[in-house]
């Protein structure tokens, strides 16, 4: 089999040695095709967002009749109809509050536990770490009914506690922070802290957390995005429309404005623009984070 392959390869390499000119025009065509594919895919990725922005600025009658390619002047009108019915900015503030508090809790406790697993030798440590990894395999909605009933008996329904407190237990965060502690926290620093008489928690706060900052930023971005887009849990545990985060408000917009397309498009624009701005600021960090996470996996 191997020998066969190499013969085929040889015959290929012979056929490749053609005249220089033919080779050049071929590679030019190849490059052209490659760039054409890249640009076509990029176009497909961005077109829905362009269409959304253009359409949000037209009156309903135009949206229903024409293909819209350039922005119109009805954005403010559509926007007014939207906020008359759905408190979308309240939803925005709710989302920011839930996302920021969850992310802070997630980062602190992931770093604490990751550091604990990385630098201490306690009983059943390996078994417990395996248990943490095992919890990553559980699909998210397995316990959702029990979660709902339990939050009901805790009197926590219609509050933010069921959305924020579970962020303390993020298995991927612990796995990630343990790796980072293994590679970027030298044990000598901890020893020197102990010699200076610092308590273990103080060592974590004063010495370890600052060293972990770059990894915390990476983990924080992903925790932030995940929580920002969270939909099922808030929809289940929150009843008041005023308390809902942005994704649930967008779902409300869809059910309440069944024919008011202009207002719906404005709602979508308000949901996408912050993400677009956020992404354009930290896209390098996000992309390198995905790449790093993929290599770990």
């Amino acid at each position, binding site marked *: 089999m191997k020998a066969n392959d190499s013969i085929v390869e040889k015959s*290929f390499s012979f056929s490749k040695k053609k005249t220089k000119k033919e080779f050049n025009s071929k590679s030019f065509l190849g490059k052209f095709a490659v760039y054409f594919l890249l640009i076509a895919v990029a176009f497909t990725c961005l077109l829905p967002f362009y269409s959304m922005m253009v359409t949000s600025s037209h009156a309903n009658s135009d949206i229903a009749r024409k*293909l*819209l390619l350039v922005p119109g002047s009805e954005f403010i009108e559509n926007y007014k109809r939207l906020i008359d019915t759905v408190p979308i900015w309240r939803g925005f503030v709710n989302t920011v509050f839930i996302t920021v508090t969850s992310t802070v809790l997630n980062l602190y406790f992931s770093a604490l536990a990751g550091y*604990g697993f990385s630098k201490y030798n306690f009983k059943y440590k390996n078994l417990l770490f395996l248990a943490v990894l095992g919890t990553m395999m559980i699909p998210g*909605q397995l*316990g959702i009914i*029990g979660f709902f009933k339990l939050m009901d008996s805790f009197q926590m329904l219609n509050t933010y506690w069921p959305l924020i407190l579970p962020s303390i237990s993020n298995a991927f965060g612990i796995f990630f922070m343990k790796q980072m502690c293994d590679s970027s926290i030298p044990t000598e620093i901890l020893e020197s802290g102990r010699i200076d008489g610092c308590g273990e928690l103080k060592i974590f706060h004063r010495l370890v957390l600052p060293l972990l900052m770059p990894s915390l930023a990476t983990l924080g971005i992903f925790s932030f995005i995940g929580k920002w887009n969270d939909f099922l849990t808030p929809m289940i545990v929150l009843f008041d429309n005023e308390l809902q985060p942005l994704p649930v408000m*967008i779902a409300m917009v869809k059910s309440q404005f069944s024919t008011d397309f202009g207002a719906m498009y404005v709602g979508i624009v308000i949901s996408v623009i912050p993400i677009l701005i956020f992404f354009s600021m930290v896209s390098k960090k996000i992309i390198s984070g995905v790449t790093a996470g993929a290599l770990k996996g």
Partner: protein
Amino acid sequence: MRTSSINKSKYGFYFVLPYFIAFLIFGLVPIIFSLYLSFTKWDGFSDPVFVGLDNYARLLKDTFFFKAIGNTLIIWILSIVPQLVLALALAMILNEKFIRGKHFFRAVFYFPNIVTPVTLGVLFSLMFDWQTGSVNKFLMGIGLIDDPVNWFNSPWLSRFIVAGVIMWQYFGFNMLVFIAGLQSISEELYEAARVDGASKWDIATKITLPLLRPVLLFTFITSVIGGLQLFDAPLMLGNGPDNSTLTMVMYLFQTAFQRFDYSYGAAIAYAIFIIILFFSLITMKFSKMNKVEQ
């Protein structure tokens, strides 16, 4: 000295303790509680009444649930196959040295992945609206069709749209994973191949693809777990004609939180878990068999 090191170990345990307490309360207890509820009849208002395996017996005869399993698998396959092919092709292109604007393309391809799935669902349901949507307007504008297509009136077109949205949202993520895999392949291998006079096609099929195999399998396995839990975007695109785009988790949500049949919802949640476990084990077994053959 010895006592102090024992003391220190104890701190490690304290540091990991919050995770386990939070997981116990918000993860494990709800999961066990769900299992108990799945053996009861509970509508959310009165107290749960123990009914044994009734919910599971009902589930085995529930044609909606079997339809939802089928829909989920169809949509998953329709989205995963073109998604991985496109992601792989783009990753190999963007790994070439001569391409300019690599960061721009990576960023643009990845961007749909971080946009709120619910928002994307609403956006695409508007764009594919048969009377007012911009897709029909565009297709009529370039003369491809004469009359508007009623997308969400056809079971297969609806499934293609849902699968298309999922593919559109995730191919960029998979592309980044593949690029990471490609970058971990040693440059020396490529050098050696070039010295031997191998063409680009040879290098791609004889070096890159075989070495990328573990990454491809990993992506495939993780996509089983994610793909069978499709929910946000399909929910916004609707159940489809004759429930043709009703996914398993949508059925769970609608049963429990819209029809208030919580105990039956709990049984559905466990059935979904078993189905996901089943398909993950199949893919893992399949990938192990491949390894043995090599």
